[in-house]
C-alpha cells in the first residue's frame, strides 16, 4: 500500500479495460455499481494491478470481472472459490478477490462457499445478489424472495430463501457483511474492510437485475429499485419510498455482521506448521 496512490483521486476508468467497452451490462444493472465500489476500495487500499487477482464464476456477476484491468480469471459456473483457493495457496502474495452471483455462489457452487469459510483462507468473496439467474434469462435462484415471478416460477416462488451471510458466518467466515448499492461509499468501505481483513471475507452486495427480474416483478425503474433497497444505514429511504412492494420485503441487516480477528488465517497457519515440521527434523 502506497500513500501516493491513496492521494490520487479515484478514476474508475484507470481500472477498466476500456478496449472492451461498451460493456454487456443492461442499463441500470446494480452489478455495475458493485464493480465501481470494488475498484474504489482497491484504489483506496493502493493495491497494485499486478498484485490483484480477480477470480469470477459464470453469470452477469462473473462477467464483470473480465472488465477489470488486472489479473482476471473467468472460471466455470460455481467454481471461482475453488479456483481462488488454489491460487491463494500457491501465490499468497496476490490479493485474491472473487466476484460471484447468488446462483454461482449459493446454488451450483454452494459447497465451495461453506468450505472456503471453514478454512478461513485470505480471500475476499463478493457475492452480487440480484435474487435471480440473470445471465440465463431470469430463473429462480436460492435467494429469490417468496412470491416473486421468474421464468421458472410463473405463479410466484414458493421456495425458502437463503440468508447467505448467516450461512457464511455459520460456516466460519471471519468477516461477513452486507450492503446495498445505493450506498456506494458505504459499500466501498465494507469491501475495503473485507479486503483488509486477514481471513475469509464474505460480502453480500444487494444488487438488482432491473432488466429481467425488475421488469417481470413490476419493481419500477432501476433508480426506483435501487432506492427501495432497505439499508440499516438509511432506513428513511425505505420508509418514504413510494413503491408499495419494496424490492426487499425481508428486513435483512446490513453493514459488518461478523468480524472475528482471533481465528488464524489458513494460509499463514499452514505455512507456519510446515515450517515447524521442517525445523523439527
Amino acid at each position, binding site marked *: 500500500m502506497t500513500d501516493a496512490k491513496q492521494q490520487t483521486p479515484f478514476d474508475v476508468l484507470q481500472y477498466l479495460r476500456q*478496449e472492451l467497452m461498451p460493456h454487456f451490462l443492461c442499463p441500470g444493472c446494480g452489478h455495475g455499481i458493485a464493480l465501481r465500489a470494488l475498484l474504489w476500495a482497491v484504489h483506496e487500499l493502493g493495491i497494485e494491478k499486478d498484485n490483484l487477482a480477480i477470480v469470477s464464476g459464470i453469470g452477469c456477476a462473473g462477467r464483470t470481472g473480465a472488465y477489470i484491468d488486472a489479473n482476471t480469471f473467468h472460471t466455470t*459456473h460455481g467454481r471461482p472459490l475453488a479456483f481462488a483457493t488454489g491460487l491463494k495457496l500457491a501465490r499468497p502474495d496476490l490479493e485474491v478477490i472473487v466476484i460471484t452471483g447468488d446462483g454461482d455462489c449459493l446454488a*451450483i457452487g454452494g459447497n465451495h462457499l461453506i468450505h472456503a469459510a471453514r478454512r478461513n483462507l485470505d480471500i475476499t468473496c463478493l457475492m452480487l445478489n440480484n435474487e435471480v439467474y440473470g445471465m440465463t434469462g431470469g*430463473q*429462480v435462484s436460492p435467494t429469490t424472495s417468496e412470491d416473486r415471478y421468474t*421464468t*421458472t*416460477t*410463473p405463479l410466484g416462488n414458493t421456495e425458502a430463501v437463503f440468508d447467505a451471510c448467516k450461512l457464511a458466518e455459520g460456516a466460519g467466515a471471519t468477516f461477513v457483511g452486507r450492503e446495498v448499492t445505493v450506498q456506494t461509499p458505504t459499500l466501498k468501505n465494507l469491501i475495503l474492510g473485507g479486503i483488509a481483513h486477514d481471513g475469509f471475507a464474505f460480502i453480500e452486495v444487494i444488487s438488482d437485475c432491473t432488466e429481467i427480474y425488475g421488469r417481470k416483478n413490476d419493481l419500477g425503474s432501476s433508480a426506483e429499485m435501487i432506492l427501495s433497497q432497505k439499508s440499516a444505514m438509511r432506513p428513511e429511504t425505505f420508509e418514504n419510498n413510494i413503491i408499495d412492494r419494496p424490492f426487499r420485503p425481508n428486513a435483512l441487516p446490513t453493514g459488518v455482521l461478523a468480524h472475528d480477528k482471533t481465528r488464524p488465517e489458513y494460509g499463514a497457519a499452514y505455512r507456519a506448521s510446515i515450517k515447524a515440521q521442517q525445523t523439527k527434523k
Partner: protein
Amino acid sequence: MRRELMTGNAAAAWGARLARADYLPAFPITPQTEIIETVAQWIDAGEMNCRMVMMESEHSMITAAGAAAATGVRVFTATSSQGLLYGMEMLYTVAGWRAPFVMANVSRGLAAPITLEPDHNDILAARDSGFLQIHCATCQEVLDASLIAYRVAEDARVRLPVIVNLDGFYLSFTREPVDIPSQDEVDAFVPPFDAGPTRFRAGKPMSQAVAVLGGTPYSYFRYETHLAARAALEVYAEATDAFERQFGRRYGALDAYRCDDADIIFVMMGSFATKAKDAVNKLRAIGERVGLLRPILLRPFPDTAIRQLLAGKKAVAVIDQNISMGMGGVLHGEVSAALNGSKDAPPVLASFVGGLGGRDISAEEFFEIAAETRRAAENGETPPPRLLFTESELREIRKLQAIAHVEHGSDEAEGNRNGEGEERHA
C-alpha cells in the same frame, strides 16, 4: 394433429408434454433454458400435469431424474454443454442403475475458451456413459425423437436412459413448421411406463445399486449394460417402424441422402448436416456424384448399417463438428472402426474437422472437401486430417491477438506449423 412454427427447444418441450412426463428436474443453461421455461408455463397454466423442481445444479438434476425413473416414474430433463459435463458422474451412475428416462441435450461447445455456440464435444463426452443417443437435424425430428426415445428407453430389453441431441442456436432457436401429433395418437404410441420389477412399492422394499463389486460381477453388469445398448438397435428399428405406421414419418438409424448412386459420401451428424445436404444438391448440379450419410443413432452405433451403406463407395469424407485432442474427429474414428476388416470398405476415409463453436461451414468448403476427397479417390491415398479454417479467419485472430498483446512466433515458424504438420488449415 396440428402444424405450428416452433423452435427446436419448444419441440423438445412438446415431446415431454405429449409423452406425459410426470417429473422434470431442471436447471437452466443457455441455449437449453427455453425447454424448461416452456414446460414451467404449461404446468402453471394447467396444460401439463407434471412436477417440475428447480435443482441447484445439473449434478443433482440428473441424480433426481435417475432416482425418479428408478422408482417407475416417467421423467424428462434437459441440459447442455457445461451442464452435461457437470452431471457426468451421474450420467454413468444412472445408466448403471438402468433408469430409463429421456434427456434433451442442446449441444454447445465446451470451455475453455467459453462459447455459447454449438459443436458436439459435449454430447460426445457422454458417448461411453450408457445413455443412448439420438441426434436430430430438424425441429420435427426433435419432437419425434423424444417420443421414440421413451419407447426405446423403457423397453424391457433396453432399460437405459436416452439423450435426444439438438444443436444449440441452429436448432434450439430456429423456428420450423412442426406437426404436433394429437395426444390420443401419442398415447397409443407411448403407453404408460411399465417399470416392471423396479417400481417403488413401500410394502415390497428392495435395494438398488448398493453393492461394491469385484471384477467378475462388475464385468457381468457392465457387459449386460452394453448388450442392452446393443439390443436397442433392434428396439429402435421396431419403434421407428411403429412410429411410421402411426404418424407416417420414417426414421432410420441412419439418414442416407442421395447415397445410392453416389461414389463419394459425406458423413456428418446433427443440424449442420443440412448444410452438407444443400452442398450435395449443388455438387450434383455440376455432375459430382456425392451423397450424405447422417447417423441419427450414435449409441448404439449402427455399424452394420454403415458398413452396408458405404460398401463399394470410392471415398468417404467424415466431417466432424468436434475434436478429440491428440486424435482428431471422433465420428471419423467411429466410422473407421465400423469399416475395419470389411472387404468392400471404401479405400479412402478422409477426416475433416469444422464447425467448432458454431463456426459456419460454407458451401465453398464443402466443395473443397468434395474436390480433395475426389483427388484422394483418384490416387487412392487418404489425405491427412484437415481442420477447416480460412486465411481471413487467421487474419482476424491476429488482430485480436494484437489487441491482447499476444506475442507469437515469427511468420516462418507459423508457416512451418501450418504447412508441414500433419494437419493443415484450409
